[in-house]
């Protein structure tokens, strides 16, 4: 375990930023966002950012290729370029897990080279939670917020910041920062304190009982979906703030002298998500609503050794315009039903 004092933190950031672009959560206009660090950009004290950090690896809009069309002929331009090194600081344990969930989609054959390139060039410095919110339920998915993953894990206390490398990539970066060795007593004390709070959280008792692979037809046919989705607006808020939602659309944009094929986030909550020329296989909002939660709680674990497609970050709880969310779904149709 290495350490630096809080006052020295900006100096450490400067050292990191000397070799790679550094992003960290900062407060802007009343909400917390990831921003590029430069002298004067302060690390936020908020628990987490409004938007998830999945943007760093899977941006909302990304150009894929370019076509030139002349008469009947077409040429395809590969406009990919190798990503540059970057570091993301302050990623919470839940969001670190979300990268693992995305990896299992994008980094299985056939590899998504856009995602893979960013993943290779990005270093994740996670930060342990010490003040979880009432909307947190990461423990439900077996995530330990006091012991986050990533390339380097960081614990912030009142006066110091503790650093520990988890991977070779992290080790390499950490060795350049010139931090002092220390014992892990302070970190252990913080962990213990946080653990106690975790068990007091209102959603501490939430379990995944009743969900998981192999439960498709049983859960799919439950009548409760109708009342749960009754007031769903069909907007994409939950999807776009979600760290694990990875559906995308591929679209063409005609610039006048070339055609750019780009991809952008899409939401299975949208009415045109599955709409094709001859019809739509999910015509009602009930079906679309069910798809999103079934995917996270049943389909994804079925394909991925039981790992759920939700990390319990609580963003959808905070942001849904009608306050419908995965917790209400789990409590209504899962093993937690009262």
């Amino acid at each position, binding site marked *: 375990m290495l350490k630096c004092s809080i006052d020295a933190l900006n100096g450490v950031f400067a050292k990191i930023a000397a070799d790679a672009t550094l992003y960290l959560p900062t407060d802007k206009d009343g909400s917390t966002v990831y921003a590029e660090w430069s002298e004067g950009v302060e690390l936020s004290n908020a628990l987490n950012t409004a938007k998830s950090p999945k943007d760093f690896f899977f941006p909302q809009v990304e150009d894929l290729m370019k076509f030139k069309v002349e008469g009947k002929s077409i040429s395809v331009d590969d406009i990919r370029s190798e990503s540059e090194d970057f570091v993301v600081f302050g990623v919470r344990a839940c969001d670190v897990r979300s990268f693992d969930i995305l990896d299992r989609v994008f980094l299985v054959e056939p590899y998504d080279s856009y995602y893979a390139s960013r993943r290779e060039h990005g270093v994740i410095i996670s930060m342990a939670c010490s003040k979880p919110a009432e909307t947190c339920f990461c423990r439900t998915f077996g995530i330990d917020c006091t012991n986050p993953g990533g390339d380097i894990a960081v614990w912030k206390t009142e006066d110091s910041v503790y650093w520990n490398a988890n991977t070779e990539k992290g080790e390499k970066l950490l060795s350049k920062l010139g931090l002092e060795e220390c014992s892990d007593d302070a970190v252990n004390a913080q962990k213990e304190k946080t653990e106690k709070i975790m068990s007091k959280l209102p959603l501490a008792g939430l379990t995944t009982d009743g969900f998981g692979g192999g439960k498709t037809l049983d859960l799919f046919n439950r009548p409760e979906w109708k009342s749960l989705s009754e007031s769903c607006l069909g907007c994409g808020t939950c999807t776009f703030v979600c760290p694990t939602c990875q559906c995308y659309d591929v679209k063409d*944009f005609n*610039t*006048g002298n*070339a055609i*750019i094929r780009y991809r952008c986030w899409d939401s299975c909550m949208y009415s045109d998500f599955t709409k094709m020329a001859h019809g739509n296989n999910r015509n009602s909002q009930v079906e679309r609503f069910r798809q999103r939660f079934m995917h996270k709680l049943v389909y994804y674990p079925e394909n991925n050794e039981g790992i759920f497609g939700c990390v319990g970050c609580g963003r959808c709880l905070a942001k849904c315009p009608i306050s419908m969310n995965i917790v209400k779904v789990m409590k209504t149709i899962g093993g937690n039903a009262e």
Partner: protein
Amino acid sequence: MQVKEYKPLIVAFCCNWCSYAGADLAGNNRLNYPADVKIIRVPCSCRVNPMFVLRAFQRGADGVILCGCHPGDCHYTSGNYYTRRRMALLFSMLDYLGIERERTRVEWVSAAEGAKFAATMNDFAEKVAALGENKRLEDLRCKK
């Protein structure tokens, strides 16, 4: 390297019945107006959806002008009255978002006013040229 003189690209939506004929008359009378004014003929100035205006800017226009029949003279009785309300609100909104107000204009030009058409275009192009390139409503993808 030679520095190219900046010439603004202007999109003019002209109503079929008055302003387009006005533009024709300007041409017939050999009146000069900038060659960078691209005329788009519309059945009535009221056909111009606010989206057309924004799209013109997106596609590289530096200024957008709508020309229609004088109020009261609309071929369809009242089309230009609706245009007048719509564009008043749209231009006010664009200004509210900080987009230069000189980039947009509505002018009533009748079929007989070839001279007015040319004068309007000259004046508008001059004002837009003074502002320089449209930076605030541009789509960089279309500029590559």
